[in-house]
């Protein structure tokens, strides 16, 4: 689904990422850990193509296509979506109007808004006066309407209270086609094999992992992915024990 090769990214002339390699297959959900300022958001921004993240070297492939020089809009059209950590306020643009333009199945908007308790927000300007939790639910609603094949989530649980984390988790699962219920192992396997949607999630606390099953964890440190491979929950425990710098202990 997504392949990042030797990616170097600078922000305002300052190198942030220095050779990131990442491969996410269809159906997989990866989790990105790393200390503040390590460049996690930079990696997401570079994958979606935001202007301020300047790619100095390396390639990004999506569904086999080199997207390194495509615009944000072209990447979105190919099926990449992103949930913002701190999205801007759009004055005079109501959430409902925005969803009308971005969604293909308009009739589902109300239903989805209801599931995220956002019905009364459709009339309001996007993100204007939204609380931390409301911002995150609105991001999830926008993504569910957009329905991308590959989703980037930047701290989906930050600023969200405990009750609403479950709600956010549920909608991430819906987005990643992980919301089907299975009683036995065979069904679970079948579900997994049929799944195509993939995602990359940044989390500091790991709370979201209580709700969203993820396949692989990575630690971004010194501009590179230093530890890759463990189950994200185990990796989180290990980081708590050894710290980000020495996460390699966990892989041994």
């Amino acid at each position, binding site marked *: 689904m997504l392949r990042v090769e030797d990616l170097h990214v600078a922000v305002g002339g300052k190198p942030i990422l220095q050779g990131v390699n990442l491969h996410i297959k269809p159906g997989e959900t990866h989790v990105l850990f790393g200390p503040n300022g390590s460049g996690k958001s930079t990696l997401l921004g570079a994958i979606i193509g935001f202007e301020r993240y300047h790619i100095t070297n390396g390639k990004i492939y999506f569904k086999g296509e080199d997207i390194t020089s495509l615009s944000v809009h072209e990447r979105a059209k190919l099926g990449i979506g992103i949930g913002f950590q701190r999205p801007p306020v*759009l004055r005079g643009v109501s959430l409902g109007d925005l969803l009308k333009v971005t969604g293909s199945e308009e009739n589902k908007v109300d239903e989805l808004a209801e599931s995220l308790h956002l019905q009364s927000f459709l009339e309001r300007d996007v993100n204007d006066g939204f609380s931390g939790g409301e911002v995150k639910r609105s991001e999830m609603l926008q993504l569910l309407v957009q329905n991308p094949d590959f989703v980037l989530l930047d701290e989906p649980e930050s600023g969200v209270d405990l009750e609403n984390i479950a709600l956010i988790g549920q909608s991430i699962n819906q987005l990643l086609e992980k919301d089907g219920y299975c009683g036995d192992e065979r069904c679970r396997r079948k579900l997994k094999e049929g799944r195509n949607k993939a995602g990359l999630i940044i989390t500091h606390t790991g709370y979201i992992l209580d709700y969203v099953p993820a396949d692989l964890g990575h630690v971004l440190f010194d501009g590179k992915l230093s530890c890759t491979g463990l189950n994200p929950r185990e990796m989180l425990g290990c980081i708590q024990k050894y710290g980000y710098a020495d996460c390699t202990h966990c892989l041994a």
Partner: protein
Amino acid sequence: MQDELRQKAQKALDKSASFGEEIDFNSFNAKEKVHLYLDNLVDLPDEEKKDMLIAGVDVSEKERTGTFIQEDNSVIHASALQDGLEVLNIGEALEKYDWLHDYYWNAVQIDADKYTAKVGLEGESGYFVRALPGVKAVYPVQACMFIGQEGLLQSVHNIIIAEEGSELHLITGCTTGRHVESGMHIGVSEIYVKKNAKLSFTMVHSWAEEVAVRPRTVTVVDDGGVFLSNYVCMRPARTVQMYPTTYLKGQGSVARYHSVLVGHPNTDLDVGSRVVLQGEGSRAEIIARSLTRGGRIVNRGHLVGEQEGVKGHLECRGLMLSPEGVIYAVPELEARVDGVELSHEAAVGKIDQEEIEYLMARGLSEDEATAMIVRGFLNVKVMGLPEELEAEVQKAIALSDESTL
């Protein structure tokens, strides 16, 4: 009385206005044709019907409670469609009602500047629109000021009275015929909102590139009265200068000004809104949105608090969509007693790249994203315009929206 007014006007003929380029009346000396009165609006030429529609005036009179049309300096139509509403030519109204002389050159001073003086000295035409006490108009009365002749000076004097407890909506569309490039429009409007009455006054300017415009409007609001003023100027005009003022005389009276200005290259807009809060508990809000594609826009706002406990807020935002052009925001707050609450916020800049990328990440192209943000910025929805007029305004935005980023 008339002589006294004429004398005052005569003396003020050289008096410059406080703002705006000095206009030489001699550049607009086309000899005017007299246009005949039309009983039936269907008889208007199709071309003119279309031109008027752009400024929000629909001659089919669908969802309208009255129509007034002035072509050049002739009143060609004036009629009311709802009982309790009056739509007359101002001259006729002054003959009909003696008391109207108390309202005539009362809110606006005839010697305010050379433009008011000019209107005072010209043979005047213009509308008199009135809602009788307690009458609530469902739909707006529409008025059109139409310049059909090249190089003409159009002079207009309007009086609007919303009597006690009434509700009146007025849309004034000002426009030129499609072949007209140059002209001048001076419009004096005196507006009276009586006790507990509500008036919404929407003005759409849709002029041509060499037109000079000098409206002079003053509103007086009584106890419990509400005055909502909307102003939209989207199309090029060489120079527009106006500073409509409202005196909130009455207890608990309210005024809200909302203006949307688009500056095109070679367009100079100097537009302000002023509210003087005099009545106990009176409140005012001024909202302005300016966007330039190369023209110069001066956006003024002035709140004057003359009574303890009054509240006013002024919000002025400007968006530069071109490296050319100027947006000059001048918000002013003036407290004349203590205990007034006046505030303002002003911001001028270009579209935030982050907002554009946010929308692009949702699948919009850069142009679509820009258009959406500009539409949101101008947000004509909050003006509460009638649906089709809002659609016209939206269309005007879309037309002037070839992204010049």
